[in-house]
């Protein structure tokens, strides 16, 4: 059974978004996603300053087996990327919700949060 923290919102494609206290959004992939992918060996992140649209491919994660697109749960401007992933992409496997975050953005429409799945609904998606 994979871990699904209660303070996050999810896309059914397994990305999570966390609203930080300063109103920015941190984005990563779920424990279930890292388990499906297996050993992660490379991540291609967006550029800082880049505008991203909700549910558009924004990053790429490569496991030994395959490459997968990562979709941004929200629209906004990328303000920081996790540079740790460049040399240690495997931390996504070991810490998908903390050290293995992908990027942070300033959201352009907080209303988009309502389109995302609650932890309970996301857990149900994973069990299907």
């Amino acid at each position, binding site marked *: 059974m994979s871990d699904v923290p209660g303070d996050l919102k999810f896309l059914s494609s397994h990305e999570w978004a966390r609203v930080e206290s300063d109103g920015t959004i941190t984005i990563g992939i779920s424990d279930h996603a890292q388990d499906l992918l*297996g050993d992660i060996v490379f991540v291609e992140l967006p550029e800082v300053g880049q505008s991203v649209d909700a549910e558009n491919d924004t990053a790429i994660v490569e496991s*030994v087996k395959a490459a997968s697109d990562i979709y941004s749960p929200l629209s906004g401007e990328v303000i920081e990327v996790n540079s740790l992933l460049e040399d240690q992409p495997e931390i996504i496997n070991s810490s998908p919700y903390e050290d293995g975050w992908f990027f942070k953005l300033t959201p352009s429409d907080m209303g988009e949060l309502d389109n995302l799945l609650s932890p309970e609904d996301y857990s149900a998606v994973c069990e299907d």
Partner: protein
Amino acid sequence: MNKTSLHNAHIQLGAKMVNFSNWEMPISYSSLIEEHNAVRNAAGIFDVSHMSVFDFDDGDQIAFFEKIFANDIKKIYKDDKAIYGALLNEEGGILDDLIIYHANNKFRLVSNCSTREQNRQWFEKHAVEFGVKVIERSDMGVLAIQGPNALKKILEIKEIDAQVNSLQSFECMFEGDKLYARTGYTGEDGLELIVPTQDIDHLWNQALELGCAPIGLGARDTLRLEAGLNLYGNDMTINNHPYESNLGWTIDMSNQNRKFIGKDALLSIDQSKSQKIVGIILQDKGVLRSGYEITHEQGKGMVLSGSYSPTLQSSIGLARVDQGFQENGKVMIRNKVLNIDFVSPRFLRKGKI
């Protein structure tokens, strides 16, 4: 979907199962990289019972294989040995790659799983004129135990004849209906055991108890890629001839009187102009994948197999490219041009860089 006799054992070990040519097979049990390293550093066991096994009876089997097999069966027919080679159609296209084993005056053949039906029909069609009986052994399973410690582990399994210890590379022996061969698909030492399914459970459990790690198809793919071994369907298909598939060494034309299927077509190929399969190593960050386009000073090509190499800790691949390549080239990955080195497809020799 087809299942091997070890299906429940895989589930109990927590394997992730995938559909591989309509067989539900374990892709990994824990971490693909850990499984890969277990085979490079110690010993691992694979259930590859999805592979097709054929036996042959009666008739002139040597003449039969001389006709359908592009390598020359006469290299092994007096010995207890195995031979690797290709099955070609009249146009020289590769129908499959396979290993023919010969011991105790019997032939046994192992070919790929996706080509089972095609091969059975092909064998039966051509067996008629030689009076050979083709016996599909769907009651057989295949285990591979591979790694530097594989032989040591195998010798501790009571049910396996200790004489396997004296088998040299590509030698094989029967023990009843069980065939043991010093062959593999990992670039490591070890054996492949082609045995009745009723014996598989027990051998599998003993190997695990002795510390062999269960290895899924994911690590099997990275291991064979590091060893520079082709995967049928990926690196070569019916639309490729052996010379552009790194299999020229398996084409035996030494007996001028031998008329094997595909020979005339191969003789008309100008090998100096054929594309070649070459090893590639990505010099930048990223992962090579099948289908990526390659360029070099004098031509172009395409990635056939690409992955991350746990041993080299960088991305490697096999590519089919125009001749005239030097040491370096470029690969296009998602609209970015990245640098590759061209190397021998055998990234590792005896498991070492």
